[in-house]
């Protein structure tokens, strides 16, 4: 028989990126947009995530008052700055560490929202610039850009899984696309996706898929099988426990990673090999966890329908 969940396919690879590597273009309305062309710019041809995030240039100054330019907002004159092309950690002025004080991050998020949100800059520029229209427009546009950058960064960093994935992407790792979308896409294009069923789960997963298939059949026939549903529900709970255990395992890897970054920060050399090993361990945990998460989702779907 065919086990749907075991059919793991590989989608057509396509360039994919989650972060902007160039300063954002002024946004026109959705109705008509023009492509802004960068002349003669050399781009990284690899389709993996770009690691080369330009570090924030601390030598810049505020466009309005000339004070040393902060990333988002000038404390000296209260002006929103043009968006800087920085990664999410830099945006919050955080080191690339994974153990993160989430309540403190939330506080920073709220504080920055109060400075950057377009609602509060709706009348920006009009206060003491003598209402220069262009400046006002610029500031509103920057406020929109900065605010979306802030929201995107907060959404990514506050979530332990997304944060880890993001950091790994910054490190140049291409994560296995284990999403349902990728699976569907692979199915439709007929390309085989790299199978990454964790070996220790193989037998269990096979069993579960048989049961799911059986339950689907029962449902199709309009029959009820409480014993089977109970059994599947029990397995679902076990999977959820495994998922949680993997998150804890991931958190222990965070400590190793953060320690390594700290050593590097203190001027001790970290070998590329060590870095790669730490990355790979986290990638492995994430892949296993994603696999289980998708299983749980499929089981829930069958149980709920």
């Amino acid at each position, binding site marked *: 028989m065919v086990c749907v969940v075991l059919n793991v396919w590989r*989608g*057509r690879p*396509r*360039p*994919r*990126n*989650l*972060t*902007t590597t*160039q300063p*954002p*273009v*002024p*946004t*026109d*309305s*959705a*109705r*008509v*947009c*023009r*492509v*802004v*062309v*960068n*002349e*003669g*710019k050399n*781009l990284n041809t690899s389709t993996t995530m770009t690691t080369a995030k330009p570090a924030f240039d601390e030598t810049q100054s505020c466009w309005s008052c000339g004070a040393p330019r902060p990333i988002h907002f000038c404390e000296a004159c209260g002006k929103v700055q043009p968006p800087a092309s920085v990664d999410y950690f830099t945006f919050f002025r955080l080191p690339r560490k994974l153990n993160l004080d989430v309540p403190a991050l939330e506080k920073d998020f*709220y504080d920055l*929202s*109060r400075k950057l*949100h*377009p*609602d*509060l800059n*709706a*009348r920006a520029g009009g206060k003491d610039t003598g209402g220069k229209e262009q400046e006002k427009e610029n500031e509103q546009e920057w406020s*929109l*850009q900065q*605010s*979306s*950058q802030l*929201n*995107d960064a*907060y*959404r990514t960093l506050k979530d332990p899984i997304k944060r880890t994935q993001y950091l790994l992407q910054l490190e140049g790792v291409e994560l296995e696309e284990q999403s*349902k*979308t990728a699976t*569907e*896409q692979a*199915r*439709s*294009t007929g390309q085989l996706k790299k199978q990454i069923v964790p070996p220790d789960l193989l037998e269990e997963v096979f069993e579960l898929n048989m049961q799911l298939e059986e339950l689907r059949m029962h449902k199709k026939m309009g029959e009820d099988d409480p014993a089977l549903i109970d059994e599947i529900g029990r397995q679902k709970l076990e999977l959820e426990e495994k998922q949680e255990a993997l998150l804890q395992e991931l958190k222990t890897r965070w400590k190793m990673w953060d320690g390594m970054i700290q050593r590097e920060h203190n001027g001790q050399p970290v070998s590329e090999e060590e870095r790669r090993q730490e990355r790979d361990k986290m990638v492995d945990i994430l892949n296993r966890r994603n696999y289980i998460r998708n299983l749980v989702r499929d089981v829930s779907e069958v149980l709920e329908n």
Partner: protein
Amino acid sequence: MKQFEPKVLQLHNYEITKLLNYTMATDRIVGIDLGTTNSLVAFMQGESPVVIPGEDGLNLVPSVVALDEKNQPVVGNAARKYLTETPERAVYSIKRLMGRGVDDVQEELKYFPFRLAKDLQAGEVLRITLGDKTFTPPEISALILRQLKRNAERFFAAPVTKAVITVPAYFNDAQRQATKDAGRIAGLEVLRLVNEPTAASLAYGLDKKQNGIVAVYDLGGGTFDISILKLHDGIFEVIATNGDTHLGGDDIDNLLITIALDDTLGDLGLDLRRNPEAVQAIRKAVIEAKIALSSQPSVKLDVELPGGKHYLREITREQFEQLIQPVIDRTIGPCKQALKDAGLKPEQIEEVVLVGGSTRIPKVRALVKELFHREPHTDLNPDEVVALGAAVQANILGGGSEATENMLLLDVTPLSLGIEVAGGVTDKVILRNSTIPASATQFYTTQIDGQANVAIHVLQGERELAKDCRSLARFDLKGIPPMAAGMARIEVKFLIDANGILNVSAREQRSGKESEIQVQPSYGLTDEQVEGMILDSFDSAEEDFRQRQIIEARNETATILAALDKGKKSPAWGHLTTDEKKKIAKMEKALAAVNNEDDYQAIRKAIEALNQGSTRLAELMMDTAVSTALKGKTMEEADMGEGPTAPHPMAKAEFE
């Protein structure tokens, strides 16, 4: 004399100048609740939001538009009579059609008397026939907005050009865009679209000023929203939202109408389904019955039908509740999903705020209690709280005041944004419940050598397949210079702004040649079409304005004559000299003489004269307690308790 309403009293006294100065400074940004059944306009008066009443003194403007005998559009209460008299010249619940295509509305057409234009082309924006004219849904909504704009202008005695308009949280991009277009057509700059439940939370939070997790359950005339928010020191952070843009009191009405039509066919042998007048008469009666059943155990329906027969039926609350159960049960799924998305259990919700007229139904309240394990908060007026919240947001956008300086709304996008990829699958790039503004960047390339165009299909929705999601727009990246397949690198940035509307920008990174994106919105008006509609309304604006001035002057005549009648019966009348009485009588006669002529200036002059001539009478009429407060006020202003509540008896509305 009549007791003033506190609100009115405030406006009539010293506040006026202050108020006008204040609103002048903030460009008079109003908050508008453009509802399925009723619409309202509100503004921030000092530290609290208030609703601006219409000419008839009522806060709610029914969202009904009709063409009168002279083919002029009529809005609100004045338009309601046309629903039963000339239903082919009237329309209600137009919000259901906003931003939708002809395929989306087939279900609606079974229950709503929308007369689509016969020459409607596939892919065209819907057009509704009223009499022998056709209007798009944004144009009809614009007529409602224009009425609210006029009410506000009358109230401020000055033009109003900026507004915050509320939309259901679960509105998609096309529905939002259509609402924004309606604002533009009405001559309003829409500074922000705010989600209705979020607006309600602003009004609630302004009042309560406490931190915690709050759910807003908003069941209105045509839409249902559930939003879960975290209130934290003035920040209103939406954590999750869900809903159904086609679920509300309308659906309950339609159930009752269907039953009544079956009854009349079965019991009386009358098939009224193709008789719009009779259907509207039944609709009116069942709505009244529905409202009555919120406070009574049973209600008797009695509708006179064509041919003189009567449709009689008693409905008990129990029957009613059984009947509507399937409708209100449809709110359960979205509530559970929102809780799940927020990662919260019902016990963690500290307060559930009820919004929308349909939450007056006891059975709905019981359902909410069951869902969230607590008694809902019912202190707010469910009809007005959204408009009041919109006024709060308008105030924040206008620079804030003492009451709102710490307030900031962080809303979310209700639906995921996706791109169609190979195999007709949706690839989600911005997930639902992401705080807005939110952005995502995608890179595109070519699939064959020398390919010059890349098509991008943008979708909104949660389903896996593109065909099951809402199509927002198709983008064509054009003029890509010839190169080998996969070499082009086009960066497309999707940004959902604070209105929940999508903006797209793009750049080709490898070539030095300029290329262009063309956007074909799947549903909606083009910029040129909207421009054209604005001009149309400008053309008739002058005539509209002249007629309106006359009507308003006549209303004022009625008010002042009524007040004068009252004055003549009061003891104060006896204190006037014979000469004074004669003068007043003469001026009264003069006013009556010009009142029915189409000369606005003449009516105004006569009113002014009578107003001045009766000042002493007005003063005498006031008892000592209020006379201090109202010193120097004229007759008309002194007796404004029941009349229109404009600060100035004849506020001149100005139009650009």
